[in-house]
């Protein structure tokens, strides 16, 4: 019943940008000092089939998000932006999450999630950013009740290189899992394409209640240096994380580096990203390498993702202080190839039909339990966007 209600809610999400788009068609010229409102939504609905050695898993499910932004300029030097982002996955995925072989991160019923991608929180982002130009530089101050910490590449759901792929990367918790951080304050300086950001945030990952806000003390710190020029975006970043896992009392740190490229328009484009992430935990360092890309031509999009990720699967669990037995990491590799074709394109959004397949290289220490798994997705993708609506 909850998931049916979630799908109804999702339909409203799909229709919302459509309604805004109709309003936008009647907008008039806006002054720079007026409030501007934009709305963007993305939803996958489809069939997820996980071929496994002992028991296959399948699920009808939806991954989705809706983001709205309100912004206003103050003179020529200052701008205020208010962001809110929501996901209805607490209603459109099972509580345990989306079946995904070798995926880890967060918990369900107090136990670590293994082979499931957790649902995202209802409130993914809620906060504001203020920027002011000072000569050739721009100072940016951000404050979020829930928002992205200054660590890692852009989160997968906002990356052009991953936009057509309904599946979270296996390296999500090595690279960009801090996109939903309960409490963030960041200060940044931009100049000549370079941006340096540093911030304090709450390091604990979201809890199992997907509908609440998990705000608490700003106990973790991160910094990111990035450079953007045309199609290119590079970043290196690091963070100290205070007890990031709910089932571990230990702190951790994370370092990441990534190179992204995007060139083209809505009709023809190429986007790719290569990234490295390392989680430094009390039981050892876990590294992840990712390369992904999307090639779009007319109504067609081809996407791929290749990953090699060290996972703590065999010894995952709650570890009170003092438990220090050795862990046995498992180096998992995955290759996803997918295709999406847009079948309905209107001013209020685009529907596409897509499918993908993922094959895995299974390490020796997991072969007996996993064999040679494979994952398949068949889905409808909706993407809607409406922007620059003038608020009276």
């Amino acid at each position, binding site marked *: 019943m909850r998931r049916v209600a979630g799908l109804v809610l999702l339909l409203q999400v799909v229709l919302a940008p459509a309604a805004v788009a109709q309003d936008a068609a009647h907008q008039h010229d806006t002054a720079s000092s007026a409030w501007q409102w934009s709305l963007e939504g993305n939803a996958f609905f489809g069939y997820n089939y996980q071929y496994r050695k*002992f028991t296959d*898993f399948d699920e009808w499910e939806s991954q989705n998000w809706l983001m709205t932004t309100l912004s206003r300029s103050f003179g020529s030097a200052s701008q205020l932006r208010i962001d809110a982002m929501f996901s209805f996955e607490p209603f459109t995925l099972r509580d345990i999450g989306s079946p995904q072989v070798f995926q880890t991160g967060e918990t369900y019923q107090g136990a670590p999630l293994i082979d499931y991608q957790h649902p995202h929180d209802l409130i993914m982002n809620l906060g504001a950013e203020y920027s002011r130009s000072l000569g050739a530089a721009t100072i940016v101050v951000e404050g979020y009740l829930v928002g992205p910490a200054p660590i890692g590449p852009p989160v997968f759901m906002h990356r052009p290189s991953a936009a057509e792929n309904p599946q979270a990367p296996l390296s999500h918790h090595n690279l960009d899992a801090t996109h939903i951080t309960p409490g963030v304050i960041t200060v940044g300086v931009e100049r000549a394409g370079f941006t340096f950001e540093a911030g304090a945030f709450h390091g604990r990952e979201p809890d199992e209640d997907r509908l609440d806000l998990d705000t608490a003390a700003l106990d973790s710190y991160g910094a990111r240096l990035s450079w953007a020029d045309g199609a290119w975006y590079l970043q290196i970043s690091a963070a100290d994380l205070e007890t990031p896992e709910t089932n571990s009392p230990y702190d951790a740190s994370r370092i990441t580096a990534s190179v992204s490229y995007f060139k083209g328009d809505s009709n023809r484009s190429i986007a790719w990203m290569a990234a490295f992430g390392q989680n430094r935990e009390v039981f050892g360092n876990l590294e992840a390498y990712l390369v992904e890309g999307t090639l779009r031509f007319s109504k067609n999009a081809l996407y791929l993702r290749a990953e090699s990720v060290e996972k703590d699967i*065999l010894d995952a669990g709650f570890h009170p202080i003092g438990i220090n*037995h050795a862990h046995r990491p498992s180096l998992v590799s995955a290759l996803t190839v997918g295709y999406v074709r847009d079948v309905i394109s209107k001013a209020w959004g685009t529907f596409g039909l897509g499918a993908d397949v993922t094959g895995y290289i299974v390490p020796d220490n997991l072969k007996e339990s996993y064999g040679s798994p494979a994952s398949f997705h068949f889905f409808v993708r909706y993407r809607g966007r409406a922007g620059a609506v003038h608020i009276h």
Partner: protein
Amino acid sequence: MTITGAGMTPLEITISIGQRVTFVNNDTRAHDLVGGVDPNNPDCPEITQAGFLTPGQSRDTGVFITPRRCEYHDHTMLSVPAFQGRIIIR
């Protein structure tokens, strides 16, 4: 011994010397069987041989060759009593 989302069934079993116990994971998530109650001081390595079990998977413990009482726990559900039990060998 069957593992479901509600716990182990039965939690306690009595066997004879020279026997094994088969653990079957009928849950939709993975479980990890470890001998003893303290992960820092594992006991009864025969149980740990059953080890990590994905959904649908089953595996035997080692052969128990001495009479004793072997506690075990599920490492993924360390503090949940329904996932802690014992094998009594007579």
